[in-house]
């Protein structure tokens, strides 16, 4: 007699578990910086860290030719370059030795670096991929 009722309870329990699982996955994706590079946050970090002071207002016209154009560069390369400035020269196989850039990136998290990289890649620039 109360069989249909049990069935309803069971199926709503399944539904609830499904909702919780999906919610947890979405939460994990949002927390993982690889899935959530936030170019708008990157833009504000680029402003607060004064990147334009050397790399140019549009990040495409550096103030001296010793500095690289950044606008439009691959985000994953920019992220890795910034990570290597953070590492410095402690590791014999990885890292970059550059006092200016090392000082710039020390306080940034990996998520911050990915956000900056996403913003840089989104900018129009004069870099071109040619053989």
């Amino acid at each position, binding site marked *: 007699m109360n069989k249909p009722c049990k069935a309803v309870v069971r199926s709503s329990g399944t539904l609830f578990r499904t909702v919780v699982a999906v919610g947890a996955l979405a939460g994990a994706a949002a927390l993982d910086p690889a899935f959530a590079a936030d170019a708008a946050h990157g833009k504000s970090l680029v402003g607060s860290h004064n990147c334009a002071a050397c790399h140019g207002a549009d990040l495409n016209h*550096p103030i*001296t*030719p*010793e*500095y*690289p*154009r950044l606008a*439009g*560069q*691959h985000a*994953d*390369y920019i*992220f*890795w*370059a910034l990570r*290597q400035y953070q590492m410095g*020269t402690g*590791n*014999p*196989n*990885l*890292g*970059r*030795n*550059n006092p200016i850039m090392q000082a710039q990136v020390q306080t940034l998290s990996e998520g911050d670096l990915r956000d900056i990289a996403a913003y840089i890649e989104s900018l129009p*620039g*004069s*870099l*071109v*991929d*040619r*053989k």
Partner: protein
Amino acid sequence: MKKIVGKHVVIAALTVLAGYTAAARADIVGNPKAGQGKVAMCIGCHGIPDYRTAYPEVYHVPILGGQNMQYLIDALKEYRKGDRRFGTMHAIASSLTDQDIADIAAYYSSQTAATQNNPEK
């Protein structure tokens, strides 16, 4: 008289100094045309659209075309010296002379959106 000699000496000294500076700067001049024949090793990675390196992380190798010449020269010399650490680039940069580096940097920095792919490769 003493004043005139002094003036000439100063001018002569400045001319010699200026000559030294110009000579030092003109020592190695990158030639994009020569660079075109020296980028065979570069193209294997940087000439393949969407190419990614696999070590130590998977990421796109950087776009070089249109990059600043002096930056490219400095970067290659840093890879050669070890101020930038990346095994493949260290090996390649170590095989290059200063003139090769200047030519390659001139080649890539001269590229624009209108540049065709390297006809020699």
